[in-house]
């Protein structure tokens, strides 16, 4: 089936540093998402993105977070600066259409902030 790739699979950084998480979505998909999962908790919606714009973001999407997809390349989540509570698994997803269309997920990036 369609595959979403995420790079890197693991990342360890020091608090206060910047980190960029990369997502390679399904090729003909137009809608992109990030979800956050803290260890032992459920996956939670962070943000979705379409046509170069954030469509909706949750309260977890702090001011230190930003997303972009320059020129059809990777869909990225940047955190600057990072905080200890940003340690989590971040899942990227994509869908061809918006409303209630199936989202295809990547395997996640495990981020540890020390």
């Amino acid at each position, binding site marked *: 089936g369609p595959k979403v790739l995420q790079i890197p699979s693991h990342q360890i950084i020091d608090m206060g540093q910047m980190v960029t998480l990369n997502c390679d979505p399904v090729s003909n998909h137009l809608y992109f*998402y990030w979800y956050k999962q803290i260890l032992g908790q*459920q996956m939670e919606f962070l943000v*979705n993105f379409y046509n170069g714009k954030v469509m909706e973001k949750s309260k977890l999407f702090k001011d230190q977070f930003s997303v972009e997809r320059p020129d059809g390349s990777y869909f990225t989540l940047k955190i600057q600066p990072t905080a200890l509570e940003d340690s989590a698994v971040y*899942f990227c997803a994509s869908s061809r259409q*918006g409303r209630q269309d199936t*989202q295809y*997920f990547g*395997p996640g990036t495990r981020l540890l902030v020390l």
Partner: protein
Amino acid sequence: GDSVTQTEGLVTLTEGLPVMLNCTYQTAYSTFLFWYVQHLNEAPKLLLKSSTDNKRTEHQGFHATLHKSSSSFHLQKSSAQLSDSALYYCALNTGGNNKLTFGQGTVLSVIP
């Protein structure tokens, strides 16, 4: 706000026995329910989805029926296989922006 509640924690079954993982939800809006399955170190993959009340949906031996009267979308299978061991998520989609609200996940462990 929207919420999803699943069978808690770990469900351990002997191979060949039936599977039932519970999922209930709360929302004030129209509903689209999903079951995703995640095997170890892999991406969550869609297993089933439905928005039609009282209609059974099936895939890969699993089935579920959305019951809006009881706000439920339980996942079932008649006979568990070892390869069914995985983490199962129930998720709800109500918004125009395709945002998913997930349950906490249920780990299914099938033993010989």
